[in-house]
């Protein structure tokens, strides 16, 4: 079959799509593209069985609490029943709360430092493990293992180790905020390097062998190959890992709670400020402090936190989409 014949054969199909009436388009949008399929017509009758449980649970577990949360951020309340609408006052209180602002900058610093350290180390380990040295599988197994241990347990294990070391200097992890910061960084590196390593290994293995060989034949040395061939080809993995470690850093809660739970506390302008408290923990402490008076502010903080994390997530989505188009 020649190209011309193929073109004429395809033409009617294309025309059909171009001349689709707006009404038909709307109907396709509403009913779905497989409306007339022999599969979907009977399938629709089983709507309740297939979609019912997830929809119901999704409304209970996500949609309703989410909407209620947004509404409550504009209210003063202790229980939900006594909510009184106050407008944006809670947001102003949240932004003028010194502990919240402190935890925001602390979290941002933590997220960026952990992002850099985790990714550089994870890439180095992944690169070393794809060179085909003996025992690569064993190393990979060991490096990934901490990922399966939960945050609370991790925090507990490391607080024992840090206190064991720091007791020699007459201090402990909950007394010194510098140690608290770096302790948490070490903990997160220990946990996350293995995870990112797996993603990097998958990316490295996907680089076509002949590309590396071509570079070698052209006389590129190892560094040149790494910078000019390997890393550009690894960009999708790098993007994923960067965003993953960034959101993980921002959302960190369990490890923070278990390792230092925000201590030490320093008085600042007459207000006690927890020095190593991150955003998630700050929101939690505002909700469940001894007096329940600040719950409206806490919910406003939570909405701000959500917008922050969602913005990072959407930025990732937009960035990956753009990359896909370029490829």
């Amino acid at each position, binding site marked *: 079959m020649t190209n011309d014949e193929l073109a004429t054969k395809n033409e009617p199909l294309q025309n059909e799509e171009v001349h689709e009436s707006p009404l038909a388009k709307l109907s396709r*949008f*509403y009913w*779905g593209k*497989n409306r007339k399929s022999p*599969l*979907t017509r009977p399938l629709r009758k*089983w709507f309740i069985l*297939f*979609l019912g*449980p*997830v*929809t119901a649970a*999704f*409304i*209970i*577990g*996500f949609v*309703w*609490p*989410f909407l209620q*949360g947004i509404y*409550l951020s504009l209210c003063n309340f202790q229980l939900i029943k006594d909510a009184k609408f106050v407008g944006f006052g809670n947001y102003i209180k949240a932004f003028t709360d010194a502990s919240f602002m402190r935890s925001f900058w602390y979290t941002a610093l933590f997220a960026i430092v952990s992002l850099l350290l985790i990714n550089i180390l994870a890439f180095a*380990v992944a690169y*070393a*493990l794809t*060179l085909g040295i*003996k*025992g690569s599988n*064993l*190393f990979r197994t060991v*490096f*990934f*293992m*901490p990922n399966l*241990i*939960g*945050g*609370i*347990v991790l925090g*507990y294990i490391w607080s*024992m*180790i840090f*206190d*064991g070391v720091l*007791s020699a200097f007459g201090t402990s992890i909950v007394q010194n905020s510098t140690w608290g910061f770096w302790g948490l960084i070490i903990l997160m590196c*220990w946990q996350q390097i293995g995870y990112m390593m*797996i*993603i990097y290994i*998958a990316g490295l293995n996907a680089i076509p062998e002949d590309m590396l060989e071509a570079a070698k034949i052209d006389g590129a040395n190892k560094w040149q190959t790494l910078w000019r061939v390997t890393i550009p080809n690894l960009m999708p993995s790098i993007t*994923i*890992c960067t965003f993953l470690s960034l959101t993980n850093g921002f*959302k960190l*809660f*369990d490890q923070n*709670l278990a390792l230092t739970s925000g201590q030490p506390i320093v008085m600042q302008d007459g207000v006690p400020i927890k020095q190593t408290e991150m955003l998630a923990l700050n929101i939690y402490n505002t*909700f469940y402090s001894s007096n329940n008076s600040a719950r409206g502010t806490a919910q406003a903080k*939570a909405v701000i*936190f*959500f917008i922050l*994390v969602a913005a990072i997530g959407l930025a990732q989505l937009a960035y990956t989409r753009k990359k896909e188009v370029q490829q």
Partner: protein
Amino acid sequence: MKLKKGSDAAVNPHEDMLKGSKLSNEKKQRKALTIVLAVICIVYVFPVLAVVVNSFKTNTAVKTNTFELPFGEMWAGFDNFIKGMTFGNYPFIESVKNSLIITLISTALIVICTSMAAWYVARVNSLFCKVIYYLCVFSMVVPFQMVMFTLSKTADNLNLNTPWTIPIIYLGFGAGLAIFMFVGFVKSIPIEIEEAAAIDGCGPIRTYFMIVFPMLRPTMISVAILEIMWIWNDYLLPYLVLDINEYRTIPIHIQYLKGSYGTVDLGATMAIILMSIIPVIVFYLICQKYIIKGVAAGAVKG
């Protein structure tokens, strides 16, 4: 792989000339690298070893001689493990039981319900399906703190605060990633297979279980692994939703011990931590292949 590289080197004349010196140099480098990695490996295992060692020590020895082996006075033997079982006014066995119930039921529920929903969403693709799908994708970027308070109140009102009912909450809050992964996979299967079955008189339920279910199995394992890793280690959701005086999970149990720091027997605490890590490590070593595959799949898509 080595063989292939060797033959390539023979073809390339430049490399052939340098072969002798370069190869031995590379061998040395490889050896050095192996040693470096082995050292890192030991550093990596060290915290777990420290837990093992300290779980046999007496309370004071854990505090003062954290990095010494438990000999002589420090040796507490298996007393720590016996003590740990009833520690913190709550039997450890109950916590393990609750964690198991919650993780197993939630994971099974998530895998079955979301795979059915995802198939429906991908095939019917009506407006309602699209709304559900994009809401699910949206829910993946919402941090738990956003819904924490309202979710725990909703769960209380609906009496979802037992290990047997909390899976409904997990299904709702964990549906996002699962639906996303399943829909992505279903879209890559040609619809013609299912249509052929439908024309042959196979009803939707039979089509799902006989044809779609087996094809979805690899994705199901990935989803199950990701959900197990999340739910087993989750602390805040069960802590806020469950009736804490009656039901605790392992992370809650351990956090409660930490809450009474100082008065607590650290040796016994380490024994509990060890008992909670061992099953996880065993599970990891058995399912390692699937876990690593699942993590890679989940990361690439999420």
